[in-house]
């Protein structure tokens, strides 16, 4: 590779470079800063700054028209730029939510923000992947960081168990993915997406098998049923800010990667993979809606909620059209905002004696903390897709994409499960608004968390004004794909 060509390639990966070099630097710096908490605080602040910087670069300084680097392994287009911006910001929000929690739970170590940075770097590579190698590279970089984060509270039996489970199952899914990739390579003769797309026009059975395995591996990352089993256990066991992180940025990154894999290399095999996504969508919506009904732990409930929400996103993706791409992007963006806020509320559930996570602990919240209760109401109903909160438009457009593609029946099933899922959001809200308080009041949440809940809560209504703007953004982003 010649010098100018290398420079040209590097100019496309500036955000990744910022994250990679920053993570290394912070890792070193953390060692030299005296005092564990101070180190954690400073590194965390620096990591946030790096994420925002990277997001700024991705949004404002990206080269016009994008391009590819490293012989097609890395793709920079409006689609990946959009995803990167959202992922970076979601990671930053996760760091904001985490700070106070980690300090009070005596988990404040400077490795935490570094791991977040590395995971984000992995996601960044994922959304820009242009061949199977880059795909796997990004995925594994992300996953390895997440395995550690899940078990970050290593003194807790539950957290260790959650981390271990996630690791073992993640390794299994990686195996499935790799096996699928090898099949695809074997039958398509290339790992590059463009070459695979050519082979997909006349798919062999081997390529279909490869597709199934690759999709299964990715479905694990977005926790779509039946590859969802890890989700409730990990959400419950992992530290709450980690669960908040799990539910937001990686979900979006994996979904974006799935869109790209299905629409670009396997775009010609839409007939085949549509059947897979439809099955995954129905199973996910069903398990997400039904499983959540009987939960008593709010984090487990959020796990099922995220499973269900991936189902709705897959409904949109099943349309296999341009509308499918932007509808899912919009849906995932709104979902990330809603979930970040909801986890902010969960992080506010702290009494004098410690964190609580049972749904019944929310009883009477409307009396003790009306502002928080109001924000929670907006957030939950927005996640549930209640009109006219902003989440409604997310759901509306994924169903719209499905209906446009002739999948009316799938949209109807989605609507039914959506109605069921509203039930458990309402069960929570019933506790919040109508039950008498039990136990002590929650102590004041830190300002960082309070700001996140308030801003996201207001956003569930306020973003309504921005829906047209968001639509133009996601349509522009989606136009890079599926054409």
């Amino acid at each position, binding site marked *: 590779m010649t010098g100018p060509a290398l420079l040209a390639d590097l100019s496309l990966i500036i955000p990744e470079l910022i994250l990679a070099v920053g993570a290394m630097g912070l890792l070193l710096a953390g060692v030299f800063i005296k005092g564990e908490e101070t180190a954690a605080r400073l590194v965390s602040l620096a990591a946030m700054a790096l994420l925002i910087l990277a997001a700024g670069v991705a949004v404002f300084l990206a080269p016009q028209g994008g391009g590819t680097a490293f012989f097609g392994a890395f793709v920079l287009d409006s689609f990946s730029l959009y995803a990167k911006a959202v992922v970076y910001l979601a990671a930053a929000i996760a760091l904001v939510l985490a700070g106070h929690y980690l300090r009070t739970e005596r988990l404040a170590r400077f490795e935490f923000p570094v791991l977040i940075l590395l995971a984000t770097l992995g996601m960044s590579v994922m959304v820009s992947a242009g061949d199977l190698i880059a795909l796997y590279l990004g995925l594994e970089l992300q996953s390895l960081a997440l395995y550690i984060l899940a078990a970050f509270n290593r003194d807790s039996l539950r957290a260790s168990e959650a981390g271990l489970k996630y690791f073992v*199952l993640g390794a299994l899914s990686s195996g499935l993915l790799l096996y699928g990739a090898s099949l695809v390579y074997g039958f398509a003769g290339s790992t590059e997406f463009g070459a695979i797309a050519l082979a997909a026009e006349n798919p062999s059975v081997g390529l279909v*098998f490869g597709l*199934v395995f690759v999709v*299964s591996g990715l479905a694990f990352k977005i926790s779509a049923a039946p*590859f969802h089993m890890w989700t409730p256990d990990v959400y419950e066991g992992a530290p709450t800010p980690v669960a908040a992180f799990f539910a937001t940025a990686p979900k979006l990154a994996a979904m974006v990667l799935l869109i790209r894999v299905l629409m670009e290399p396997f775009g010609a095999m839409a007939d085949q993979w549509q059947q897979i996504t439809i*099955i995954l969508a129905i199973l996910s919506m069903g398990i997400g809606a*039904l*499983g959540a009904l009987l939960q008593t732990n709010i984090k487990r409930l959020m796990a099922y909620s995220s499973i269900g929400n991936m189902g709705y996103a897959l409904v949109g993706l099943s349309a296999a059209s341009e509308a499918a791409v932007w509808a899912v992007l919009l849906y995932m963006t709104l979902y990330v905002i809603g979930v970040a806020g909801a986890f902010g509320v969960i992080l506010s559930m702290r009494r004098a004696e410690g964190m609580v996570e049972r749904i019944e602990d929310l009883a009477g919240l409307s009396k003790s903390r009306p502002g928080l209760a109001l924000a929670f109401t907006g957030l939950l109903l927005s996640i549930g897709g209640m009109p006219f909160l902003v989440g409604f438009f997310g759901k509306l457009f994924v169903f719209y994409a499905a209906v446009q593609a002739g999948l009316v029946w799938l949209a109807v099933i989605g609507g039914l499960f959506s109605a069921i899922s509203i039930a458990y959001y309402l069960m929570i809200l019933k506790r919040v608004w109508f039950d008498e308080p039990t136990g002590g009041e929650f102590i004041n949440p830190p300002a960082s968390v309070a700001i996140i809940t308030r801003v996201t809560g207001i956003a569930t209504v306020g973003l309504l004004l921005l829906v047209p703007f968001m639509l133009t953004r996601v349509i522009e982003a989606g136009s890079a794909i599926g054409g």
Partner: protein
Amino acid sequence: MAFIVVFGPLLAAIIAGLFHKQIGTRASQLITTGATIAAALASAWLFVDVAILGNARTYELAQWMAVGNFDISWDIRLDSLSAVMLVVVTSVSALVHVYSWGYMADDPHRSRFFAYLSLFTFAMLSLVTADNFLQMFFGWEGVGLASYLLIGFWYKKKSANDAAIKAFVTNRVGDFGLALGVMAVFAVFGTLDFDTVFGQVDDGTVQTLTLFGLEFMALELIAFLLFIGAMGKSAQFFLHVWLPDAMEGPTPVSALIHAATMVTAGVFLVCRCYPIYELAPNTSAIITFIGATTALFAATVGLAQNDIKRVIAYSTCSQLGYMFFAAGLGLYSAAMFHLFTHAFFKALLFLGAGSVIHGLHHEQDMRNMGGIYKLLPVTWLMMIIGTLALTGVGIPLLNLGFAGFFSKDMIIEEAFMAGADGVTFGYFAFVVAIIAAGLTSFYSWRLIFMTFHGKFRGDKHTLDHAHESPWVMIVPLLLLAIGAIFAGGLFRSDFVARGALEFWGGSLPPGPYAEGNYGEGAHGHHPPTWVLFSPIAVTVLGFVLAYWFYVVKEGLPAKIAARGGPLHSFLANKWYFDEIYDFIFVRGARGLGDLFWKVGDRRIIDGFGPDGVAGTVMQAGRRIVRLQSGYLYHYAFVMLIGVLGLAVWLVARAGGQ
């Protein structure tokens, strides 16, 4: 003046109803009573101005709504017809307000009561002063509401609540007819304005309207639908069932609403719309028949009732029947005349009964009364006067008698002449009216004898504490008694005879047999002398029989009643109307409701719908949760099964193609 009359009571009702907590009970009573007394005085002045001096006029107050050519305004229409109603409504209302000071003295919610009374007065006044059908409908519904509120005033009493609902529901049936009638008027004439409609009423004889797939002559249909409304409000046969039960309300209410004013709204409606009824002979015949039937039916039921107020209630029903068949025969002025006199003596009887009830500590059963005329001498005398007026005692040819003598006998005589002229049901109405007059006399005197004469049959404690009513209750009785004695003789000429043409001034026809119709000094037709004397004859007969049974052979009727012959049970149970309605409508509706509720809603809709779905969903949720065992190998197994399933599915599909 007109504003004081109509809006004074409304203002008073608002103040007393909403602010009685601030101003106190006594102030509420003062305001409402003062407002109605002022309204009564103003009405008297208007009566002289409008009816006697002939200054009919209409005030347009405001536009109500204007949609296309549907243009409705709020008006105060002052003509002789409305002036008569104004006098009746406001004077009885004022007296009832005063009377209630005594009657309701112990009730803690007096201010609410007075507010309702004034609200009713306002609604009734806006009804009678309406210049279009819609405002009349507004007043019509307003009095219905006030009636409901007042019947159920003692809302803690189940029977009062039931009666209030019964009155409301029964009136809904009638009001539905009225609403349809008003709509039909608009459909045919394109306006609801009285004068415009009556001006082009001939059009209605040509047009036809289709209802329930049948074609009707427009005017007949309108007339009939309006009459259904009148039947409901005026408790005519088939829709009469609510009136006796309405006696659960406080007695002043019975006097004001269920004797003197609201129940006469139906008669007023028919009279107001006389141009329509003139051209709708078939409906008029129906009105005659229904009216006459009601007169007879209610009189027979009145024979066997033991509740003092119910007797008078059936009597009211019966007298309304007289008014209706008069209107049906085209004798509108006679109907209005009877309405006018009846208001005085019926209010007198009710308030007298209230005085008895008050004096005997809310005892209403006549079987527990008797011989109390010495304890309540003024009440006794007033009741006698009321009864004499109701039964129409007087001397024919001399024109000397109580109020009812002039108005009721006028109806009976003119009914005979209408029959002679070949008007449908004319003779039928005449015969029925004679029989009913005899029955009226019998049950009225029975009431007097059972209540005031003979031996006291109640418990000793009640008798010891029996007392004459305070002066606030006596004075209204005295004033009404004056009306009951003189209202007939004084106004006969104006209402139905020589002065009628001038008096009504076009708001009503003077009547086909009114002397004024035939020029100054001329005498109209006269019925044969035996017709003149037959009412008084049956009245005397009724009195004698009542005297025989209830004074001479005191105790005999009780034995007859105890033996319970079929005729007695038939009458005592009011021709089994309540039972029949209960069986057909109430139980029918209940059964239907039960069916829809238990089978339709609970078993089918809930069973397969909300409950069933919720149950299934929860069950499914439980299974899914059970899958989440926590074992790593289970999870891995599910994943592998998933991959396998997807692969097999795709390959099988591909192979199938």
